[in-house]
């Protein structure tokens, strides 16, 4: 082969091999989430803040002196795309850890691919039953605050605590499995507490007008309405109830947009149960996230960045405990013996063992709008802890 052709072939080979070389010099992490699509409002902020955390991590010198390379895929909230993403991330990008930030219908296909590729999969928005003790799935982990059953149990307990008289409870869910499951569980718990469940509305996602559902709910005359659902269902149900003249108390489960929405609605009878500290608490870490977000010129408000940031903290800790060269098997071992200090974003650390991929203790904080002070205030002092058994 003439020398000049040999040089060209060598150069082309170097270019072709470059990603592989880069992959060997970095921890490769995959992310598949609903960056676009109808439900993107809930999931895109998580992806953005996870990416921000990884950027900050690399700026600090990476983990164990090696950078983290993040490969992002948009599954638009579609299960088939999520499965294809997971396959690509594992087989082509050689990801040693994958993150799901998407709707619950994408969980099963991504979990199947993670199992096939023997790569740990982390959920960062809502925890599925598969991560709960005592027999969690080998490859599935969850750092999200949300877990429908525990949240609903705590919500009903809170309503019971605040009410001196017998309670008439209305429930509202979106017609998706995870939301329905949470609200069905709330109904069972409420009955065991002697609370009367007067109505339960399961509302389909594409709903042009929430008033017919709210009318039915209002006609049952509830004192409290509790909703565990994507934010669109929670807020539109509340607003429709208010338009109909209902003056009772509404307990929302806090998801990324909730803090800003409590400020927008200025509804003195609206309460929120949250697994994350609101940015209104102004913790030192909140300031750090605000500063990082300000410099990065992000699309989404800083109040929506907690979940992605916590997922980033989990990733950092897991990679710190993974010796070089990293493999998915080593990351999996690290994740099965992990403790992450959430620095106040949660009431306590996230701790995982082989028999518990959720956490050993779950913490909740309650907030409400104070009409007199015109600000968000804690509705209950401190964190309320639940032992996870």
């Amino acid at each position: 082969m003439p020398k000049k052709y040999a040089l060209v072939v060598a150069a082309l080979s170097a270019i072709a091999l470059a990603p592989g070389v880069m992959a060997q010099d970095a921890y490769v992490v995959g992310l598949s989430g609903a960056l676009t699509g109808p439900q993107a409002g809930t999931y895109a902020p998580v992806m953005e803040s996870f990416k921000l955390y990884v950027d900050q991590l690399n700026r600090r010198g990476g983990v164990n002196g090696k950078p983290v390379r993040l490969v992002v895929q948009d599954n638009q909230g579609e299960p088939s795309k999520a499965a294809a993403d997971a396959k690509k991330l594992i087989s082509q990008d050689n990801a040693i850890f994958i993150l799901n930030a998407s709707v619950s219908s994408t969980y099963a296909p991504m979990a199947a691919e993670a199992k096939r590729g023997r790569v740990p999969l982390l959920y960062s928005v809502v925890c599925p039953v598969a991560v709960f003790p005592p027999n969690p799935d080998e490859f599935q982990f969850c750092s999200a605050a949300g877990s429908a059953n525990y949240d609903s149990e705590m919500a009903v307990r809170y309503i019971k605590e605040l009410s001196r008289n017998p309670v008439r409870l209305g429930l509202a869910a979106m017609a998706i499995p995870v939301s329905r499951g949470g609200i069905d569980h709330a109904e069972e718990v409420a009955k065991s507490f002697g609370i009367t469940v007067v109505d339960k509305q399961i509302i389909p996602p594409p709903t042009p007008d929430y008033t017919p559902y709210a009318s039915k709910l209002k006609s049952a005359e509830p004192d409290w309405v509790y909703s565990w659902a994507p934010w669109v269902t929670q807020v539109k149900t509340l607003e429709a109830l208010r338009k109909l003249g209902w003056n009772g108390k509404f307990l929302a489960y806090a998801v990324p947009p909730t803090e800003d929405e409590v400020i927008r609605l200025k509804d003195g009878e609206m309460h929120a149960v949250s697994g994350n500290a609101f940015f209104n608490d102004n913790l030192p870490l909140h300031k750090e996230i605000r500063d990082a977000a300000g410099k990065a010129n992000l699309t989404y408000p800083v109040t929506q960045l907690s979940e992605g940031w916590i997922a980033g903290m989990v990733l950092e800790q897991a990679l710190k405990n993974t010796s070089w060269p990293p493999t998915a098997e080593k990351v999996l071992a690290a994740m099965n013996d992990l403790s992450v200090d959430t620095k106040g974003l949660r009431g306590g650390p996230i701790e995982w063992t082989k028999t518990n991929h959720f956490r050993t203790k779950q913490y909740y904080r309650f907030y409400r709008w104070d009409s007199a002070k015109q600000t968000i205030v804690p509705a209950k002092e401190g964190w309320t802890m639940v032992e996870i058994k």
Partner: protein
Amino acid sequence: MQLAVNIVVLAAIYALISCGYVLIYRVSRVLNLAHGELMLVGAYLLYSTASLLGGNPLTAVAMAAVLGLLVGVLVYVLLMRRMTGEMVLAAVLCTIALGVMLRGATVLIWSAQVRHPMEALGWSNPSLVLFGDARISLISAILIGATAVVYAALFGFLGFTRWGIRMRAAGQNPLLASQRGIQLHGVYALAWGLSTFTAGLAGMLISLDSSLDGTMTMIGLKAFPAALVGGLDSLAGALIGSAIIAIAEVLLIQFVNPLLSDVVPFFVLLAVLVIRPWGLFGSKEELDRV
């Protein structure tokens, strides 16, 4: 009484959306499956003009409405015009691609955050108390009025104006209409403009009543059965189809199971298609032609 108000509001929403499907189908035989996305674009245009011209809310609304019309004309000029003379199926597939593109574009331009055009305009949406303690939000009441005005204007336009008659002629026999000197591209562009204007108006009013997010595209698709039940080439059919779907939906929510509200439009659609495949008020010849 509240039940009746809920039915009228829902019927008005479906009617305002479905008239856009009918306009385009009647003139060009194309099922516009990007109608929900065009609604979304209309609502986002209002959010943008409201953010820019917050001090002049009426100007912002008017500008958004005009921009909505222009978007429709542009969709025809830049995209659908090239489908003229091709198979209808190709044009329908083209609208599906347009919808996917618009969904992506809205996220890129406005992000996926929930938006509140009402706040950007500096308006509020009080609840009005009607007879029998029934209530309706101000925007819902305006939506009912807007739907009535849109339908009256469309009936008048198609029945008594020169361009309206040209539009009907182009829909009935495009070749003959063309030979008689009617500018088909002008007529089609106008139909797309008017259809997008009504879709945008529906999107704006729905987003003013609650909020604006990506789920609006699915609302656009939910109104599709209303247009089919009435007959795809009949404006009066769209109105009555919307009323039938709204009555079925609201009554099921109230008396049976709210979950059924999601499937009942399609159940009614199937029932009508079995009995009258061309819809309650559609023309049989249209179906044969398709």
